[in-house]
């Protein structure tokens, strides 16, 4: 027979899944719009608000379970890390919103060279999706891989910063600015993905994985 706590924990899992789905969607939407020059700011904003709502729901449910059942051990750690993860997901959408805003603020960027960004993006999208998978399946090995990838993103970010500082005259300054900003946002998204991955270690082994 399932414990009373399990009913609550399952509910927590389903809300978190909704959050992670919504966050992933927000990131794709924002980035694709960036490449295509579309303005999806309002849509991404809507997703962001949804995530804020869901984050509050997670928090409420977590504390209700703590009050009612005084969970211990793996149950307690699961609830703790779910609170961490829900924060991470809400940050995903925040940065997605920032990216969506760029088209707004800087205008049409379809002519810029997006190769570097596309490379960074594929890494980050992988990190986001795998960190969510690791979290849902409590897969410590996968989590470790996600954390390893973070170095690559950091490298790309540092590289683009150094390059931009050394650039002389450019055709379109907006591309450079947008580039750096997007990579910065992607790097932050990657960081949060790492933290989510680190929390997987906490749930399974009682210790956060080093990032």
């Amino acid at each position: 027979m399932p414990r009373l706590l399990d009913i609550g924990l399952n509910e927590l899992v389903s809300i978190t899944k909704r959050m992670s789905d919504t966050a992933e969607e927000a990131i794709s939407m924002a980035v694709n719009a960036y490449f295509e020059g579309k303005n999806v700011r309002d849509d991404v904003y809507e997703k962001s608000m949804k995530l804020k709502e869901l984050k509050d729901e997670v928090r409420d449910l977590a504390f209700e379970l703590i009050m009612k059942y005084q969970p211990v051990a793996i149950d307690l750690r699961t609830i703790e890390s779910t609170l961490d993860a829900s924060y991470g997901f809400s940050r995903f959408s925040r940065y997605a919103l920032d990216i969506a805003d760029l088209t707004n603020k800087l205008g049409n960027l379809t002519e810029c060279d997006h190769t570097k960004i596309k490379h960074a993006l594929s890494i980050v999208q992988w990190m986001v999706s795998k960190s969510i998978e690791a979290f849902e399946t409590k897969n410590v090995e996968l989590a470790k891989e996600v954390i390893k990838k973070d170095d690559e993103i950091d490298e790309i970010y540092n590289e683009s910063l150094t390059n931009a500082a050394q650039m002389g005259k450019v055709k379109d300054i907006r591309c450079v600015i947008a580039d750096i900003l997007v990579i910065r946002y992607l790097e932050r998204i990657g960081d949060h993905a790492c933290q989510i991955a680190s929390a997987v270690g906490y749930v399974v082994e009682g210790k956060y994985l080093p990032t």
Partner: protein
Amino acid sequence: MKTKIEIRNLNVWFNKRQVIYDVNLKVPEQAITAVIGPSGCGKSTLLRAINRLHDLIPEAKVKGEVLLDGKDVYKEDPLVVRRKIGMVFQKPVPFPSMSIFENVAIGVKLNDLAKKERLEKIVERSLRMAALWEEVKDILESPATSLSVGQQQRLTIARTLALEPEVLLMDEPTSALDPVSMKKIEELIVNLKNDYTIVVVTHDMRQAARISDFTAFMYEGKIIEFNETSELFRNPKEEITEKYITGRIS
């Protein structure tokens, strides 16, 4: 932390049936150690092996060592051992034919530990330590049975404290009490740990989490895990421990 009681290779049988298997445990001084585990796992038996209560039961056989400050209690005078190691039981048992005063004083009296004049002081001190003095100071001569159950349990604690023991063993001290009394006794126990080494057997895990510094988990006569309470409850090392404290087995 210094070890007050060390249990080494303890094995206990009842009528040839073994109930405690090779228990090794170091009970830290001036701290509260909780012993948790499902019914019948041997926690009460373990407790009673510490103050040699099994001596009275011919069907019981005890092998192993229980060291109090390094000396094996099974090689010392059992009466002295029991004065140094006091015990509080699940059912509050004030002695029914005696007054409140007599109940607290009886252990001291029968052990010839104090002259009559000192008894009053001892009784007052013990009742104060048990957080009962204010409630009974004007009715010391009334029968102990006229107190509420929660007060009776505090009375038995005072009775034990009157002997100035070094260790307090408590066998499910709040099981028979209502929630308010339970809370009072829990507060009392936590206050006492500054002066005594306390071992509490409890089937209420939450209680163990609330009041103890260290927790030992017993299962089928063996100590499965022993650790600081916060560590054991947040990150247990053994699977059975985890299963038990999360309520997946009982």
